[in-house]
């Protein structure tokens, strides 16, 4: 599996959404997006939901959000999250 990392913690809105959307539109079956954000990116999560992507959202102890999104429904995102 190829991890596409997007550290959006110091990016101004809406750059994280813009970059994430670009990745999702081109995403292959063997790829997943790993986004780190200071906020829970609800528009992105809602969009992933509507487009039927697989997603996982977790907040770590530092209050940083980890968002994993994949096109392939068989990926076990729980095993890939680094929290």
């Amino acid at each position, binding site marked *: 599996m190829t991890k596409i990392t997007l550290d959006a913690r110091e990016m101004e809105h809406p750059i994280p*959404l813009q970059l994430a959307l670009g990745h999702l539109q081109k995403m292959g079956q063997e790829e997943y997006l790993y986004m780190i954000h200071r906020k829970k990116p*609800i*528009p992105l999560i809602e969009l992933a939901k*509507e487009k039927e992507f697989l997603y996982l959202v977790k907040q770590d102890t530092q209050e940083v959000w980890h968002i994993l999104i994949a096109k392939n429904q068989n990926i076990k995102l729980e095993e890939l999250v680094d929290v």
Partner: protein
Amino acid sequence: MFNQGGLSMEQAPPVMVVLRFFVTASVFGVLLGFYLMGSVANFLPHNEYAFQVTVIHLLSLGVMASFMLGALFQMLPVIAGVVIKTPTNKATVVNILLIIGLSSQIFAFGTASSSLYLLASISLGIGLLYAMTMMLKEVIAIKDHSTSSKGMLFALSSFFIAIVLGLYLLLTLGGYLDGAYFKELKEIHYSFALFGWLTLLIVSISFQVVEMFYVTPKYPTLMSQYLVNTIFTLLVIKTVMIFMGLDSAFINILLSLLFILYAGVTIHRLYRRKRPTSDATVWFWRLGMGLLIVSMFIHLLSNIVVLNNQIMGISYVTFIGFSLSIVFAMVYKIVPFLVWFHLSNQGYMEAPMMFDVIHPKRAKIHFKIHLAMLTLWILSIVFQLDEVFLIIPSFLLTLSFGWLLYHLIMAIRKHNYTQKYTEKIEW
């Protein structure tokens, strides 16, 4: 467009719902500029009262309320998680009634025609109260309020109060009511419209967007939790005091101090950005907050000592400058995002990027025009320049709104062109 309240793509209103209000606001801004130029050049019959209320309402309803309503149609689903069903139809009704109502109101001020006052009351009453009840109903129903959604509740309530009082004033001017409390209600109308609606809405939205847009530290919890409620409570206390015939100067001083504190904290937050970049919208925010401090400082002083008209004039111009600066900052963030986001989400791979919708350099040019306009207004007041000189800042005001209008129309054309002539993918 922000990531706090549960935006669903299906809930996001169509681009034109928002842009039609922004275009309306810009057109009224251009008309305001022409009106000012016409008055300065003595092309229009001069009636001081009609002139003042026309300028105030072109600005507050034509420009500010139009921008704010457009922004609310966009932000309520996002910031407050509120769903406005059939937004296109609702926005069209509100927009048309606002245009009819304000136009008849302006002509009523100039002609003192009773029937025009009645038409203005009916159109503005139905249009604006419909918008407010529709939005308030949804915001009241929110179970878990954020600081921004709670602030919006108070701002919308303030606008509701200001509209009802405005209708009373209009019907009094039209001769339909005896206007026993005209003076008192006029003061309360202005307080709720300017401090309650306009400023509270800016304050509550800023708690969300300043941190989000510019990666700043959070506002102090005490401020984000209690500032809006406190200001609204003070406005209610002020209303009661006015009706009891008590001096409300102390409340005005407190309001001024709170707004100065808020503006100071916002400027401080903007200077502590984690990744400072040169962006016109940041300068609009800084300028807006600086002007709010000046305006509120004069307002504070005016409640302690008697100030001359010249200084009070600076207070009014700086307050107008504050509200316009923040609105322009928001528009230059909202419009490129909306156009890009809707097209990208629909699968148009050739959707213009945000800087292609309205290039940041164009926003910078607008900032310079806006700054020059405000500087010249203030200088003309400070140095008591001949009235003819006012033609220059009036022209710059027209240019400022004309500039924005042109870029809004270009953004709409780019959006429509992409939908019509480029390929769409399913993803």
